[in-house]
């Protein structure tokens, strides 16, 4: 029945338990899995083997586009499309284009950061298979879960179940896809 299963979910009672279990799952080489905790557990990202987010790269691209947009907009309007002498200044100078470019750098960086975050984390997500699990709401209260997805190349129903058991997981259940 592995084809119709989303994966396995295991329950843990305390933060140290899930922290250590996460390290075991990480060391076993799994990639498509996640932890569900009622509150942020410091250091869990490291225990899960997660790297730095890619959002800053997207922010940088947004910032560069913003800066170039500001500069080229002032250049186009002032020095190409409608030449007008203002205050005895040149048609174009990076000096007076800078405040606008600077503001657009910040604006586009903010857009790219927010957009990049939503793009990468897949939110808003209206449905997720773990929501079918009967005790999932306790994950917002006092219980910790590890979910290993069946699409993970290392996923094998018996072996993965054994790993979760050995890591201290309880009530290991197969999730419907």
């Amino acid at each position, binding site marked *: 029945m592995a084809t119709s299963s989303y994966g396995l979910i295991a329950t843990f009672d305390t933060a140290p338990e899930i922290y250590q279990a996460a390290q075991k799952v990480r060391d076993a080489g799994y990639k498509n899995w996640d932890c569900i905790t009622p509150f942020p557990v410091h*250091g869990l990202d490291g225990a899960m083997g997660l790297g730095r987010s890619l959002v*800053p790269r997207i922010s940088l691209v947004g910032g560069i586009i913003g800066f170039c947009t500001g500069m080229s907009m002032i250049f186009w309007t002032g020095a190409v499309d409608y030449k007008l002498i203002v*205050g005895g200044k040149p048609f174009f100078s990076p000096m*007076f284009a*800078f405040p606008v470019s600077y503001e657009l750098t910040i604006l586009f960086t903010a857009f790219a950061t927010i957009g990049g975050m939503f793009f990468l984390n897949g939110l808003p997500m209206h449905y997720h298979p773990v929501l079918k699990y009967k005790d999932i709401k306790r994950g917002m209260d006092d219980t910790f879960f590890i979910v290993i997805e069946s699409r993970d190349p290392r996923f094998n129903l018996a072996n993965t179940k054994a790993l979760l058991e050995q890591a201290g997981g309880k009530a290991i259940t197969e999730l419907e896809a």
Partner: protein
Amino acid sequence: MSTPAASSSTPPAAGKFLVIGLAGLAATALGLVVSGAQKVAYSYLVGFTFWAAIAIGMMMLILIHHVFDANWSVLIRRQFEHGLSAFKWLALLFLPLWLASVFYQSDLVWPWMNLDHVMHGSHTVGQDVLYTKKASFLNLNMFTGMTAAFFVIWMWLSARLRKASFSQDADGDLKWTSMNRKTAAFGIPLLALSLSFAAIYWIKSLEYHWFSTMYGVWFFANCVRGALSCGVLIMIWLIARGDYRGIVNKNHFYSIGLLVFAFTVFWAYVTFSQYFLIWNANVPEETFWYNLREIHADGTPSQWKYVGFFILFGHFLAPFLYLLSYKHKVTPAYIRPAAIWILGVILVDLCYNILPALKDAHGDPLPFLSINLLWVLTSVVGVGGICIWSYLKSFPTTKLFPIRDPRIGECLTYHE
């Protein structure tokens, strides 16, 4: 390493720096014979303000730490508190400039101190309406009183901050934390005003015709950048010594690195605003200050123009792009060159603001590349040796970090 928290490990060799400092000061004094008093006095003013700026920045960071009840900076705060011990020596080191202006030559550094000083052209300072309108502010009595007040304020705030923090090591009483918080609440406006007026009296008044409302803020930005860069270097030094090994983690570096980055942007914002407003308004009363730093009287570009470009790219663009990277902020080996670089460019920035007030017979600023740079360096070594000696002398007198600070637990387990 043995338990580092228990007490300071072997005290670092402080005496060495006293010798280096005195040697630097002696070499600067030698410059009096080689280059004459005026050039050496200007160079010394650069070296002096460089270290004064770092000490002021350290105090500002401590005050900001307390007023925000911050946790990650508890460790590095202790090192800044040791740095504050330099203020009494800085006061002493300012004396030569004051004594020389009073007893040797009144317009040696600040031309407005001599009413008979002949301005470029023909008239004297006393006949200059731009001086007479400012005379109630720019006179020797005000200068003396204000400068004395700056040092009294700085030494008094330092004494309060150091006493409260060091006493808490012994008794753990929370009243010291609330005392520090009160000091921070009235200390920040006091320090902000005093450092702004110090920048105005010591540096801006060298060209007393000129005015810029951004000047105090520009100086403040350099103060904090200098102090943060020193903080980074101190952290790396104490890790290498073993004192902070395993205690300072990468999140501490990340936080201080973020501040280095933030103040890089802040410095650029302030400095650009000053330049841009003057450029855009294009009023001769203001533009002459930048003209002096760009062209000779005959319109040809001067060396200072390239110094200005170097500051634009070296003081802002290069550190800005470099510090964008997370890795460059959290890895000691990567952030150390950035900190050293920023300290070096702060020195160039101070040269750019101070040295062009030295003029030749045609009213042109003396070039950047000259023997005066040597006296700048000997002054930096001289004043710096004394300041570092003072820091190292204070260092073994207390615990390595405030062990009974209420936030020390959060600091040691700090996680971004």
